[in-house]
């Protein structure tokens, strides 16, 4: 039961980066438990994926050739089959939208404790997970009772596994129940006239702006700076700006020279879309806002005072 099973993730023919990061996390865990690291590729071009997933430190790859795209019933059944057939006792899954569509079901089915969205862990006698709470304002350590568990790992927290390993590759097909959830297609949203990922300077606005009318203020700033306007999710959810302006996990990933976050708290799903910016500036009334943890320059202040002054500076 000391082996660790990492489940990789792919979409539309491509392995997602978090798969390689999960391998690194899984290897750490396998070392601490004195077990092997097994990686599952489920659905799609599993033979091609198996080759890519054979990174340094991987002992076995299980290529589960069921279906093409993600289907939570297939994933759950495949993990179940691998837990039964191999010495794997714990499962590491990416903390992604699809990961969270089957990891809780796996934990529930096998009666294993579940910790999601891990950003770190230690393993001595048992597992202690580091994760955030309260919108990234605090970190916690969580002790897990029992030596088997399901862990989902946040993207970008572990370095991707590299090199070429000497894993054995096993091709399998698993039985699974007929799916009561059938994927009928995909849709790209976020299209349209503006591509915020092309902008050199972004003025990005969040819920701190309070009212739709107040958007004028940040539009004016964007004009004064020759910048493009982008936003956090609530602004788009409210219909104040179109989806193609949203920065973050479910929006666009942007890497401008300068990113100016105005009234944005810095939730993890937002930061996922802008942490690669060269220079990050934040204006926020809350000195504990997590955005300041990744900012290069911060103004702790009211945007309704600071932004008009800043517009004047460039007028």
């Amino acid at each position, binding site marked *: 039961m000391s082996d660790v099973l990492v489940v990789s993730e792919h979409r539309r023919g491509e392995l997602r980066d978090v798969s390689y990061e999960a391998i690194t996390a899984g290897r750490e865990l396998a070392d601490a438990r004195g077990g092997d690291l097994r990686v599952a590729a489920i659905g799609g071009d599993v033979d091609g994926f198996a080759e890519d997933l054979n990174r340094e430190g991987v002992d076995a790859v299980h290529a589960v050739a069921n279906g093409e795209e993600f289907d939570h019933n297939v994933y759950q059944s495949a993990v179940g089959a691998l837990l039964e057939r191999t010495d794997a006792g714990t499962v590491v899954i990416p903390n992604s939208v699809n990961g969270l569509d089957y990891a809780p079901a796996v934990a529930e089915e096998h009666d294993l404790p*579940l910790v999601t969205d891990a950003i770190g862990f230690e393993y001595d006698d048992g597992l202690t997970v580091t994760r955030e709470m309260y919108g990234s304002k605090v970190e916690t350590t969580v002790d897990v*009772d029992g030596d088997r568990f399901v862990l989902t790992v946040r993207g970008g927290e572990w370095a991707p596994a590299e090199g070429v390993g000497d894993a054995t590759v096993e091709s399998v097909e698993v039985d699974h129940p007929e799916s009561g959830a059938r994927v009928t297609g995909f849709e790209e949203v976020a299209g349209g006239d503006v591509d915020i990922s092309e902008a050199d300077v972004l003025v990005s606005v969040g819920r701190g702006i309070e009212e739709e009318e107040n958007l004028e203020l940040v539009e004016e700033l964007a004009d004064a700076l020759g910048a493009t306007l982008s936003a956090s999710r609530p602004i788009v959810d409210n219909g104040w700006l179109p989806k193609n302006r949203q920065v973050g996990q479910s929006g666009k990933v942007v890497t401008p020279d300068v990113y100016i976050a105005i009234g944005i708290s810095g939730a993890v799903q937002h930061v996922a879309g802008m942490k690669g910016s060269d220079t990050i500036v934040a204006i926020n009334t809350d000195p504990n806002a997590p955005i300041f943890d990744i900012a290069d320059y911060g103004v702790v202040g009211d945007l309704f005072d600071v932004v008009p002054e800043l517009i004047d500076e460039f007028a």
Partner: protein
Amino acid sequence: MKVLVTVKEVAEPDDDFAIEGTDIAEADLEYDLNEWDDYAVEAAVQLAEAGIADEVVAVTIGPERAEETIRMALAKGADRAVRVWDDAFEEGFSDVAAKVTTFEAVVEAEEPDLVLGGVQAADTGFGATGVALAERIGFEHAAVVNDLEVDADAGVARVHRELEGGVEELTDVDLPAVLTVQTGLNEPRYASLRGIRQAQRKEIDAKDLADLGLSAADVESALAITSMYEPESESDAEIIEGDAGEAAGRLAEVLREKGVSA
């Protein structure tokens, strides 16, 4: 069709907060209906207004204080509510399985055709209860739903699941199902004055574990929070001091250095 909506009262820390032991000091926390659950409530109420749902029941696991929050769900149009609480929940940090066990008992009593809940709770951010519940009670499920159309005659919920990077997956989910609702699915209404008045007369059925045929052992948690601290900053941000004018002046200097100009 009967819809059960799981709602949570979440805690949000004040701008200035202190950590006491393994949680934020009670005095520094404000409580509110979880943002994601607000969208789930709205989705359920819209199903009722469309004549698809004939009853909407809100359920929460929370102390007496949470009645204020669940009353918001009633004011927005839920027909009645169930609130489960027990000393056993005060013991520590409930894990997903403990919540699922509690909701399972409520599902058995209510027999819903559709269960809606938020993608995650804003405070703990686990994002797991809905999918785990579906597995336990043998319902189908879909996580992170940002578009929903229920075809009750066909027994299907046609949903969009919002994946990363501006891609949505279109999925048909057989009922009965549990769906976890993403923000942006709809426009949550504000409770009207009339709704608030009506909510005062609606029933909130308070139950403890024994009422549900459960005991403290059934909700024992496999997880324990052992420490809480403020994260170390990853950057050495220059915090610009001074009044708004001074701050803007220094900021303008920085921006010009970085080559920003109209």
